[in-house]
């Protein structure tokens, strides 16, 4: 284990590294066994588990897993966690990943918020004074009431956040709806462009979170060729309740795997031959060249295209577009609007993939008996993401590899439906909605935002800017939004967004912008109930807790919202006279009755969790089996390669200069995409999900930050040019900001692009130089809503990197 010396593995070099580390470890002063003492009587736990109380709960952050935690509790304190150990180890077990196994450090952290607080300094400065719960409830109730009285309900907004999933979480809508409603939001930061683009191809009901428009990962066991675009379960969905284990079994079933990514991601670590490196944001160019080869070699499934699709060639173009060379085939073969033939030689310099490698991949696709194409959510998180998501789906469409065993639609894998209800939110009388990414614009100049220019839905324009913002268990005010420096500037004007309420467990960067900051109890500190996550293909429920008491004056979200409702004279309406525990029991019983197979309430309380496996599904199987009986929700009822509706809608849009919306899925680089680098910013940059965090959740856990260092990935060639060595501290600058981060100099990333793990906690002197020392990528991502979705295409980014 010669540390970085690539030498013979002598004991001496290994030990040298070890000793260096230990010296520093000692300097850090952490006492062994110092974090949370186990029982005083010295009884060893673990094996002697009978002595411990076992309490069931879940990791409730948003990777999709919702993995199981079996708390071992002694004297009212969590001492350690086990995870799902029920059933055969080789079978379905919702095993928590490294994050879930570290959540005790978060729960018992000295950094937990303990008291309700009111802002004292500037927004973003993080200065607060303690207040009583009564003062907090009254102040927030007054602000909410005044906002509605003065500006109307459209001025009230709940910011996007996904850090807590529970049957009784995110309760603000229920209160706001009792007061006449609030400005709604649509889409999310995960799949924003895909949610906007894909319905034009597969129909209105197509979304990334269901089991109709995609196949489950296990279905790929029947495939002979699995092609992944920006899809790395081992980086994004790592727990045992996620598909990372399903994927391992797919590989072992024998399919050839092609993993297309700008990084050699962890899904293909150990299997580097699976990696096809590509320049970030150019997936659609690769698809174009593959399509060219399939068409040129007469390898498309013309029968499928004629029967199930619209717009492949003139044969199926809608009347409005016939005879105008607007078909997909025209575009690919060089007779379309740009008159450019999309050959592998055309794609090679764009994608950085050699033309012969593209030809080989096209030949493999043509030869596949069951092609499983699946995209993650990274490719669409670009400013050309609406087109990219649709373009990737062209591979199964062109080959007719949809709706059949071992195939997929090109979407990310299917997700099971839930079997559990949640606390009813009531009806929102306000119909106006903004894209969740547009909240900052709506706070800044909402009254100028329109449907045509800004994607306002349900109305032609907004009647007011956002004046009251509620932010629960989320970090999308700053850390997980974009252009944090802009956020800071916009929010300084307190005449615009007048009141910000943040509820969280620790001082996140978003929390620093709160006018009222309220300490939340972790779900382990209250009765918690939630279903399985939205990843691996099974159904389940967990009920349990509290495992221990919340620290200080931290309160359950349910009690916080009830307290505010009380000041508004709405407590009885909000609670209906029930405690959270009573709601959970009622929700469970109703769900169990509807489901018919779930255990009784007494049984689930005793056993803590329930799960049942589901059979794999094949995406669009019903449509392919009988398209007349099961048409898609497109105007034609078919797969719309050319979306006439999109052509019509695009004509009504007021697009920013350079933005493009097209009825067929083309390769357009998009804002800060391919070709946008400059002498000042000569590198492309992209964020990626990192093992130590789910977004920014767990970002404050020291143990994870040590074991998984926050590092920018930079290719040896780019690093050499800049005199950067592995482990060096670097400055990364974009057109909007600068941050400091350690370098991982590695061949695992394509030259010309750097990769930054997203979600690290922003750490800058905002009144001073604003240089982020935390390595938070949203310090440097510009705020430029994408053309069609108006979403967060933040992986389109250009930077310069220098040794700091």
């Amino acid at each position, binding site marked *: 284990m*010669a*540390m970085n*010396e690539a030498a013979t593995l002598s004991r001496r070099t290994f030990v040298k590294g070890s000793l260096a580390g*230990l010296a520093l470890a000692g300097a850090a002063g952490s006492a062994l066994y110092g974090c949370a003492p186990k029982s005083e009587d010295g009884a060893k736990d*673990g*094996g002697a588990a009978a002595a411990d109380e076992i309490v069931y709960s879940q990791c409730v952050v948003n990777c999709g897993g919702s993995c199981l935690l079996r708390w071992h509790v002694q004297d009212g304190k969590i001492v350690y966690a086990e995870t799902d150990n029920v059933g055969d180890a080789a079978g379905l077990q919702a095993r928590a990943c490294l994050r879930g*196994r570290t959540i005790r450090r978060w729960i018992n952290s000295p950094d937990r918020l303990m008291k309700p607080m009111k802002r004292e300094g500037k927004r973003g400065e993080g200065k607060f004074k303690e207040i009583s719960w009564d003062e907090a409830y009254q102040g927030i109730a007054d602000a909410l009431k005044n906002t509605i009285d003065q500006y109307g309900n459209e001025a009230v907004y709940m910011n996007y956040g996904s850090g807590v999933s529970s049957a009784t979480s995110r309760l603000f809508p229920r209160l706001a709806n009792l007061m006449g409603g609030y400005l709604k939001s649509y889409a999310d930061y995960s799949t924003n462009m895909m949610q906007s683009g894909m319905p034009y191809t597969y129909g209105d009901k197509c979304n990334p979170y269901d089991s109709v428009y995609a196949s489950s990962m296990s279905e790929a066991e029947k495939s002979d060729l699995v092609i992944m675009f920006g899809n790395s379960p081992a980086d994004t969905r790592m727990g045992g309740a996620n598909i990372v284990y399903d994927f391992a079994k797919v590989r072992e079933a024998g399919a050839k795997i092609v993993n297309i990514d700008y990084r050699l991601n962890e899904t293909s670590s150990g299997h580097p031959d699976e990696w096809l490196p590509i320049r970030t944001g150019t997936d659609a160019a690769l698809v174009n060249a593959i399509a060219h080869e399939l068409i040129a070699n007469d390898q498309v499934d013309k029968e499928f295209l004629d029967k199930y699709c619209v717009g492949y060639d003139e044969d199926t173009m809608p009347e409005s577009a016939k005879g105008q060379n607007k078909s997909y085939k025209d575009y690919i073969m060089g007779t379309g609007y740009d008159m450019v033939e999309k050959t592998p030689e055309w794609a090679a310099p764009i994608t950085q993939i050699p033309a012969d490698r593209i030809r080989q991949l096209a030949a493999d696709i043509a030869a596949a008996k069951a092609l499983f194409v699946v995209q993650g959510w990274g490719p669409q998180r670009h400013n050309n993401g609406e087109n990219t998501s649709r373009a990737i789906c062209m591979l199964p469409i062109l080959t007719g590899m949809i709706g059949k065993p071992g195939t997929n639609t090109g979407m990310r894998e299917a997700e099971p439906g839930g079997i559990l209800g949640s606390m009813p939110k009531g009806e929102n009388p306000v119909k106006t909605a903004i894209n969740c990414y547009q909240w900052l614009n709506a706070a800044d100049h909402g009254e100028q935002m329109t449907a045509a220019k800004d994607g306002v839905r349900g109305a032609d324009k907004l009647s007011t800017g956002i004046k009251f913002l509620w932010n629960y268990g989320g970090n999308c005010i700053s850390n997980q939004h974009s252009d944090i420096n802009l956020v800071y500037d916009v929010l300084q004007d307190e005449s615009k967004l007048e009141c910000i309420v943040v509820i969280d467990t620790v001082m996140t960067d978003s929390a620093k912008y709160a006018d009222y900051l309220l300490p939340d109890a972790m779900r382990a500190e209250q009765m918690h109930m939630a279903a399985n996550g939205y990843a691996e293909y099974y159904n389940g429920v967990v009920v349990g807790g509290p495992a221990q008491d919340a620290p200080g004056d931290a309160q359950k979200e349910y009690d916080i919202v009830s307290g505010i409702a009380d000041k508004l004279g709405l407590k009885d309406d909000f609670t209906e006279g029930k405690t959270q525990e009573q709601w959970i029991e009622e929700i469970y019983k109703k769900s169990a009755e509807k489901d018919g197979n779930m255990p009784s309430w007494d049984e689930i309380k005793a056993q803590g969790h329930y799960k049942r496996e589901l059979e794999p599904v094949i995406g669009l199987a019903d449509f392919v089996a009988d398209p007349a009986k099961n048409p898609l929700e497109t105007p034609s009822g078919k797969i719309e390669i050319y979306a006439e509706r999109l052509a019509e809608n695009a004509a009504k849009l007021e697009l920013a200069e350079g933005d493009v919306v097209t009825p067929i899925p083309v390769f357009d680089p998009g804002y800060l995409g391919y070709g946008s680098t400059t002498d000042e910013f000569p590198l492309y940059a992209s964020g990626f999900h990192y093992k130590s965090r789910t977004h920014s959740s767990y970002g404050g856990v020291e143990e*994870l930050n040590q*074991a998984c260092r926050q590092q920018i990935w930079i290719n040896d060639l780019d690093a050499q040019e800049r005199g950067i060595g592995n482990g060096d501290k670097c400055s990364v600058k974009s057109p909007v900001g600068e941050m400091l981060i350690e370098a*991982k100099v590695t061949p695992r990333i394509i030259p010309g692009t750097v990769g930054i793990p997203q979600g690290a906690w922003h750490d800058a002197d905002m009144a001073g130089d604003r240089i982020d020392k935390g390595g938070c990528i949203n310090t440097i991502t510009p705020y430029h809503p994408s053309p069609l979705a108006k979403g967060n295409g933040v992986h389109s980014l250009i930077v310069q990197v220098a040794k700091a």
Partner: protein
Amino acid sequence: MAQYGFYFDSTRCTGCKTCEMACKDYKDLPATIAFRKVYDYEGGSWTDAGDGIYTTDTFAYHVSLACNHCAMPACMAKCPSGAIEKDGKTGLVHIDQEKCTGVGACVTSCPYNVPVLDDAKKAQKCDGCADRVAEGLNPICVDACPVRALEWGDIEELRAAHTGTVAGIAPMPSPDETTPSIAINPCPAAKEPGDTTGAIANEKEVTNVPA
């Protein structure tokens, strides 16, 4: 005497470190001490094929290592105070905290970077979760792995159950040194012990340098 040990399937390991963190949680270890560590071994280079197009032979894989409970433990041989013992029934190697004098001979002699000295100058390391094993359970890391890349048991039985295993891949040293009780299913990228084409890419992480 039985000899217990770990089976590690490097074809499945994604380097997620759930094993490492589950251990840290159960053993209540601070950020800078880990009894199980995951090594990222990487190598390869890029060739400019002109026109901005590149080719590469990059490889990367992970090795998750706790104590290998060696048949011939170097730590035990070098300990001047006789504090390191090998259990007669299980073959597990453990450090007697009463006898340990903290001279660190085990730290420098172990070829696998396993024992560490804590702030109290006592040597610490993976004990194979002897308490759990005594109860008929697996070490906590084994039951934690999301992709079931770890197994535990009599090492000879594990070797019989999994054909084609080896007792070392780079960056591990040759198993000849201490006869480690480990059976590894090598991934396609795996290199032989002594390989010089790659390097440990996460040195600071595995030497417990604070972030």
